[in-house]
């Protein structure tokens, strides 16, 4: 999932407007921001799989993406916002953990329960639904963006150009489609 994480971050911003937008977006993508660093450091491993979403096999991503580490990273990230109050901390933690929740239907059994665990989770829709996964993520994008736009109008203080924000997220999802990425 790619654009879906942006949509989740925007929805959490809309839910808790006192949380900074940047924090919700960084939080929602936090596990994916750790992952390339860990790959570069040799802690995690991938290999290319052209034609199959997401274009790589995630051979070992336990330190960034396992269930236990998602909880740990959620707590670590939330701790940075301790001075902003409990509600913002909870939103920050939810942003990070939303990544695991949204990845779970897409990933093909490569989400470990904890680092080096034998048990892995993931419905594997990237593999089972070579095109259908894109429509499921489109639903996540639509719901997240719609909530963001409605709340921006109701609450104010963010979403000044909400339609522009939505256009960026939709464009990301279109660019990440099976047709343009040659994944079908």
């Amino acid at each position: 999932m790619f654009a879906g994480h942006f949509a989740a971050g925007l929805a959490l911003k809309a839910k808790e407007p006192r949380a900074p937008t940047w924090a919700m977006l960084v939080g929602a993508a936090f596990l994916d921001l750790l992952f390339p660093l860990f790959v570069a450091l040799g802690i995690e491993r991938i290999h290319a799989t052209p034609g199959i979403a997401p274009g790589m096999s995630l051979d070992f991503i336990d330190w960034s993406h396992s269930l236990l580490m998602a909880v740990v990273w959620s707590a670590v990230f939330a701790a940075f916002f301790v001075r902003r109050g409990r509600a913002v901390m909870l939103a920050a933690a939810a942003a990070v953990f939303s990544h695991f929740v949204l990845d779970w239907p897409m990933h093909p059994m490569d989400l470990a329960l904890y680092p080096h665990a034998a048990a892995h989770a993931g419905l594997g829709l990237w593999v089972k639904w070579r095109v259908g996964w894109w429509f499921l993520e489109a639903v996540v994008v639509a719901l997240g963006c719609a909530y963001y736009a409605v709340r921006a109008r109701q609450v104010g203080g963010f979403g000044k150009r909400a339609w522009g924000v939505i256009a960026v997220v939709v464009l990301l999802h279109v660019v990440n489609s099976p047709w343009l990425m040659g994944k079908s």
Partner: protein
Amino acid sequence: MSPIVFAVVCYLSFTLPTALILWLDGDTASSASAARPAPEAKEAR
């Protein structure tokens, strides 16, 4: 693709759209301290 190039591509694919979204979003709701009433108070009024 080397791991370093992969990391750079990953970070650019996040940073560029995020920067654009933040500019378009124009968040000011989060800039005040926790002492400020929640934005929901505006709705109540």
